[in-house]
């Protein structure tokens, strides 16, 4: 099973949101990292077939998804960034509705709804009105609906945005549990979401693909670029203006700065083991400054 993106470009007016993207996915979890406005959501939408590329094509098992049409939509599950619900529907009814949209037979749908509700831990809320749910619960309803048709391709756009830490961990485990035999595409700007479960991490920046590697490889690429340095309070300003500072910690009198830099920022600087957070900063510095 593979999903291939060929030369996909999407522009809105003059603005190119996606620029000549080429990618190939096989089974496993793929994390798509990118800042806001990097084109993550657009890419997800194109893969979910709710948007069409301005040029370029997407192939599923070598067949154009536009030609496959409903056959393609039959194998995908999509959780959009903003989870829409019918406020006055109960969870169960809402999921039954989506199941019917996905073409599940009634009996099959009933079983499946029970199953996914169990999976996302909403079993005891099955009669509750979706409109009254908290953001995290709505998100879980969204995840549940995406799983209803046992999708071969699961596309989840910033799924952990509204979740609390406990729910995030639960969701992460859920994803890695179901990711065998599936392509799971997960976009996020929370690095820890994908750190351990992603088979490969894609980095999108201003509509372009900058990196596509396993997390290990990616980390290796910035191996010698993460440093810690102990400085006085008065020096912080200087380092912040000159380097990407990912963290400022206090250690008694001194301050510990974690710095991402191609060169050694200070003679006393010590090399550190990079994590994905550093990687993210390495590519998207603007927001931290």
């Amino acid at each position, binding site marked *: 099973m593979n999903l291939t993106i060929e030369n996909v470009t999407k522009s809105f007016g003059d603005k190119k949101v996606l620029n000549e993207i080429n990618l190939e996915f096989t089974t496993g979890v793929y994390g798509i990292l990118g800042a806001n406005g990097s084109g993550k959501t657009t890419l997800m*939408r194109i893969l*979910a*077939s*709710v*948007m*069409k590329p301005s040029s370029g094509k997407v192939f599923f098992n070598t067949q154009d998804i536009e030609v496959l049409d*409903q056959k393609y*939509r*039959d194998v*995908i599950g*999509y959780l*959009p960034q*903003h*989870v*829409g*619900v*019918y*406020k*006055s529907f109960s969870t169960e009814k809402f999921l*039954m*509705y*989506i*199941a*019917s*949209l*996905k*073409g599940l037979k*009634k009996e099959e*749908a009933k079983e499946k709804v029970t199953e996914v509700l169990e999976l996302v831990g909403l079993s005891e809320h099955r009669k509750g009105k979706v409109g009254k749910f908290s953001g995290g619960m709505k998100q879980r309803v969204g995840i549940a*609906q995406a799983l209803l*048709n046992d999708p071969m391709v699961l596309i989840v756009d910033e799924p952990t945005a509204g979740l609390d830490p406990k729910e995030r961990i639960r969701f992460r485990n859920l994803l890695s549990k179901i990711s065998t035999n599936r392509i799971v595409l997960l976009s996020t700007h929370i690095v820890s979401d994908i750190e351990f479960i992603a088979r490969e991490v894609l980095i999108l920046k201003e509509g372009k693909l900058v990196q596509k590697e396993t997390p290990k490889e990616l980390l290796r690429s910035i191996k010698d670029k993460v440093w810690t340095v102990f400085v006085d309070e008065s020096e912080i300003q200087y380092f912040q203006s000159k380097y990407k500072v990912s963290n400022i910690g206090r250690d008694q009198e001194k301050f510990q700065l974690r710095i991402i830099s191609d060169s050694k920022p200070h003679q006393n600087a010590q090399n550190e083991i990079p994590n994905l957070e550093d990687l993210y900063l390495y590519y998207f510095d603007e927001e931290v400054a």
Partner: protein
Amino acid sequence: MQLLKFELYKMYRQKIIYFTFILLVLFSTGFTFNRITDWEKDLYREWEGPISEEKIQLAHQGNEELTKKMDERVEEDGFVYSETEQTKMGIYETISFIINIEKNANEKLSKLEKENNYNTDLEKAMLKDFDTSYFAYNKGPEKVIDYASVYSIFLTGAMLLIGLSTIYTQEYSSGVDNYILSSKKGRVSLLWAKVSASLIYTFVIVIAWELFNLGWNVFQFGNEGWDTSIQHYFKYYFSPYSFNMLEYHFIQLGIHLLAAFSFAILIVLISSICKNSLIAFFINGAIFATPYLIVEMLMLPNGVEDIFRFSYIYIMNVEFLFDHFKTFNFFGYPILYPVVAIVWMVVVSMALVLVTSHIVRKREVTV
């Protein structure tokens, strides 16, 4: 099937449709209630049957007597008619009215002998097998037919506008469109479900007001006279169609329903294009009401006016299709207006479905 059920469920959960329906039905009664009395019916019954020379004579005499009586009374104390006399007067008038229908038809026939238009033969043929002479009390059917052509527009129109305008826009505004567009049956199958649900809704609406119509008017004016011809009702005085009230009522309902179906599909289409339910609502409302405003406001030449009359509001009204002999010249071959209307509505509906299915197939989410 499941999808259709859900669409219906969503539609009928809108409480406002029940509220609107009840309110509109209430106002359509005009808050008047007059029940026909038995003696009135009995008076009519004396005259029931085909109108013979003898009856015409009697009516004539009766009329004269009454007029004379009235003149005397006016001089005496100003008192005009008793209720019985009023009813009798009505009967005499109707009879003379009915005689005139045939007279008119015959005059028209002789006039037609001299003409030779593309549609002359058709009109002649229609006027020849034409028998309107059966007289009976028929106020009930008249009222029923009137309700089904005038109030029906408001009821069906308003109910469709309110109930269906949001059929797609609610998906866009609730954000569920993301799921819908990315799911297997979310495009074409869902459209079919929505269209079917809309048609069922339309059908239910029409049946609902028709039941009220029958109940309300038959209870007030009686159930007699369905076999009298439609020309007895003044609106169809010049109609060349030889239908009785019952036949006409069915045809009327049929055409109304067809136009309503087509309008329902149009609303689905507009709703699928618009992101904002309010805009969808206004566009639909405008499409429905504008032809009426144009025809009523502007003094258009007949030919142009008829173009606007082939719009939803007028076809749902049905009246103009049958009130005169009107044909459409199809390469020298005359086609009666009702036929044109039916074909037109079917064609429009199919085109609308095609366009809509194209739109939902290509639909993308917007931000």
